[in-house]
């Protein structure tokens, strides 16, 4: 039985990013992209990256999903812009730890801390991690690649 409070999950920041997702657009000059797919709930998204050497110069996404997955993707694009791949990987790990209930130094997360609400809702962790898995796959591969979570 989940004791999670809905307001912890659906915080204002999440609701705002769901309604008005940031960097929600196609990217014609992307040099990395990956498709993410959660067949369980039908969430699908594409993450576009423009890498300049090691730096994420631009990142955007498109797709459809629940409030948690859309907000997570939107927050992610904001957080990753300008980061190096190494910094992005660290952030990816921190976010993942937070969502699965491990101790994380919240100062490293910034706004992404709101995603921690999902840890009380185990069935929803996959929704929040989909975009992160997808960007991870995009960084690793130059080709059009895809990941599936369920």
């Amino acid at each position, binding site marked *: *039985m*989940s*004791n*999670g409070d*809905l307001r912890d*999950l*659906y915080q204002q920041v999440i*609701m705002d990013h769901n309604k008005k997702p940031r960097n929600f657009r196609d990217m014609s000059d992307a040099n990395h992209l990956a498709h993410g797919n959660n067949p*369980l*709930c*039908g*969430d*699908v998204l594409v993450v576009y990256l423009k890498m300049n050497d090691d730096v994420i110069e631009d990142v955007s996404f498109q797709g*459809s*999903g*629940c*409030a*948690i997955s*859309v907000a997570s993707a939107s927050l992610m694009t904001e957080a990753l812009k300008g980061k190096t791949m190494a910094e992005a990987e660290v952030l990816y790990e921190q976010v993942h730890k937070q969502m699965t209930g491990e101790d994380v130094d919240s100062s490293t997360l910034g706004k992404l801390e709101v995603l921690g609400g999902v840890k009380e*809702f185990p*069935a*929803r962790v996959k*929704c929040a991690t989909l975009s992160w898995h997808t960007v991870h796959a995009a960084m690793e591969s130059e080709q059009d690649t895809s990941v599936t979570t369920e």
Partner: protein
Amino acid sequence: MSALDILAIRKDFPILDQQVNGFDLAYLDNAASSQKPVQVIETIADYYRQDNANVHRGVHRLSQRATDAYEASREKVRDFVNAKSDKEIVFVRGATEAINLVAQSFVRPQLNEGDEILISHLEHHANIVPWQMLCEQTGAKLKVIPMTLQGELDLSGLDDLLNEKTKILAVGHVSNALGTVNPIKDMISKAHAKNIPVLIDGAQAVPHMAVDVQDLDCDFYVFSGHKMFAPTGIGALYGKQDLLEDMSPWQGGGDMILSVSFEKTQYNELPYKFEAGTPNIAGSIGLGAAIDYMNALGIDRLAKHEHDLLVAATAKLEALEGIRIIGTAKEKASVLSFMIDGVHPHDVGTIFDQQGVAIRTGHHCAQPVMQFFGIPATARASFAFYNTMEEIDALVDAIKKVQELFA
């Protein structure tokens, strides 16, 4: 027809009497799986306490009792769907296995490249994928009866779809995603007029209505136990005896043989030819107990109460702002699929759960139906006879909570 005493019935389902997240549980996910009455639970427990042994083998007392109970259940299933003979009832793992069995043992040997298998747009994946696999194996083509915006089958082109290349029509009795009751009797008669055999996927029908395979004249009828108050892992295939006689076994092993040598194996008679290995004995006996339970209450009375719930829930949802009901067929059973404007069904499911309301959110293993409506998923409430009008109110309250949160 006297009304059901729902509160008395609910006492038979101990699982319903619990709180979830501080609310009384409203279990409205019956199309996914139903709950089990104590009569079924105790029958299974008694079998393991008193009679457990392998069937059709030992001369000892326990084996005889287990065999008698197993075969008595087969007779209950026969009576439940009004088959002519026990030989026409094969115990399987569920509707999915039964469809695979018919695809591989009945249809496959007759298929040539370019032949056609006809299904409908409303099908559950269980009645799509086995046929697609068969098409890949043989070069046959999968044809699909289209659907309408109401969620009914569009039968205007059926005459052309049923043609000399069609080797089987496989269609659901009731849509699990939308609740549509298909006019299968008419479809069966049209297929038979062209000598095309018909399989009916009855998984979503048997919990909600009386089924008479002789009256329908279908060639195969399949269903799962767990959607009709019996355990998971058990179901039944009905097949006309002459068709089953001509079919090769589905799996090989013990119990499906009369004699085995390294030169030649002689297969057992019906229905054992299709029941290789030690079967799900306890599950079969549980299925028999579930049939007894439904019969004692009266399937027509159960159906009437469920219909009342569906009508009431539909009216209440229609009265709400911002709700779109998906699937508005004239004839429906048990299922109410819907969308809440601006809210993804997955969020709906989580918020409902926080209110103790259990529904299914997702594509319901019917992705082509979702694609037809251009949506990734729906929220689906599905009713059983133990549900109450109060639970419909809990559903409405949960919807209001979602709308408040996402306002």
